[in-house]
């Protein structure tokens, strides 16, 4: 005699403990569908229903969403990499080699996908920006959201820049040398830029010094790059993304989907 599945199912689901976790059942009624989405913390930001036209992806090619997805991928792989990387000048390069050379299972895959996805995010964000421009989705009332998007673009590039130093290899060291020297040559900010005398900038109090935490790239620069890359910039980017997505929900899609 087969066990009465319905009876077992009811025993599991018709009690207080289960109901305190799973509030609504799977009844396929419009009301229940709404309840399921709205009462779920991960899903409640989404619209409950999507109009048929919105399933046409060729308006946006989901580029913004792709960028966000790659950002989430980077966050996940980044956190996993943090288990095996120390931002210390005597350890960083060796840690990176360990990850790449089988000392850690899946380490090579993890490091390489983190690197590739970083490049991919820059590419998708550029294509997204191009699409927004070509569809005129920056026009009123969406001008501010465009500005937020540009700031997000800058943050994406800064994430790439700070991450590039972390392996502490020749590529990263000299790339950041050149980049921070450009900062040092910026007008009104750098000690080698125009108007530096106006502010009394010297090698140890201009914006380059603030970025490096020193007059040249040493241990403080590596540590700062690490903190900006793992905490500062993702927090800023995340906050601005929240604003960016909120504006899109409020203003609606800009074209026929």
């Amino acid at each position: 005699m087969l066990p009465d599945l319905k009876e077992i199912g009811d025993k599991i689901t018709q009690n207080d403990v289960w109901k305190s976790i799973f509030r609504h059942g799977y009844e396929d009624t419009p009301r229940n569908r709404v309840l399921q989405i709205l009462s779920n913390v991960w899903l409640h930001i989404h619209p409950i229903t999507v109009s048929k036209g919105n399933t046409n992806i060729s308006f946006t090619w989901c580029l913004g969403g792709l960028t966000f997805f790659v950002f989430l991928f980077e966050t996940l792989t980044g956190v996993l990499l943090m288990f095996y990387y120390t931002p210390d000048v005597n350890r960083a390069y060796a840690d990176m080699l360990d990850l790449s050379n089988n000392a850690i299972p899946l380490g090579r895959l993890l490091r390489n996908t983190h690197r590739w996805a970083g490049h991919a995010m820059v590419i998708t964000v550029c294509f997204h920006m191009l699409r927004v421009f070509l569809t005129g989705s920056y026009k009123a009332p969406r001008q501010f959201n465009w500005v937020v998007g540009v700031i997000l673009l800058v943050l994406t590039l800064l994430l790439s820049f700070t991450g590039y130093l972390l392996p502490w290899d020749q590529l990263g060291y000299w790339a950041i040398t050149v980049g921070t020297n450009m900062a040092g040559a910026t007008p009104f900010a750098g000690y080698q830029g125009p108007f530096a005398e106006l502010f009394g900038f010297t090698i140890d109090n201009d914006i380059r010094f603030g970025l490096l935490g020193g007059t040249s790239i040493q241990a403080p620069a590596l540590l700062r790059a690490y903190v900006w890359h793992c905490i500062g910039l993702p927090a800023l980017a995340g906050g601005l993304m929240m604003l960016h997505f909120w504006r899109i929900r409020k203003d609606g899609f800009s074209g026929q989907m």
Partner: protein
Amino acid sequence: MPQVGMEAEKRKVKETGGIWTSRRSFFTLAAWGIFLATIGAYLWNLLGTTGFFFPKVLYEPSKCFAVGYPQDFPDHNVVTLKARRVFVVREGNTFQAISMICQHLGCAVHWTEEKGIFECPCHGSKYYKDGVNFAGPAPRPLYHFHAYLSDDGKLVIDTSQIVERERKLVI
């Protein structure tokens, strides 16, 4: 009535081209001003050039270092001290300490023996043996550092002191 008096005063001040503000709004403005100034001071403390992001003590390699005895350096030669980012140029018994840091964007230049010039691999800046830039994007010549003999006869270079190109150490 106080309201009537205020209106008359307001008119009188405005007639003579002045700005009139009530006592209440003046103090409100002043209080907001002081508040914002205080917030500004705290923010400067945090983000300004004497703030949190600008450490006062640096643990960097010493800018003044000995590089060996003068006889260690062959005559008519340019010795590359990679870790110190400096060249020691010897001609007979004159010595010069030239910076390895390109004046364009900070890459380390190479001494090319065959051509007798310094060349930067990053963006193609080129300098003569005395450090003068003649090609590429470098805006000025390489720095020359103060070089002197220490008490025990060693050649010492002080990279915190930049000297004119013409200055040479004569032993």
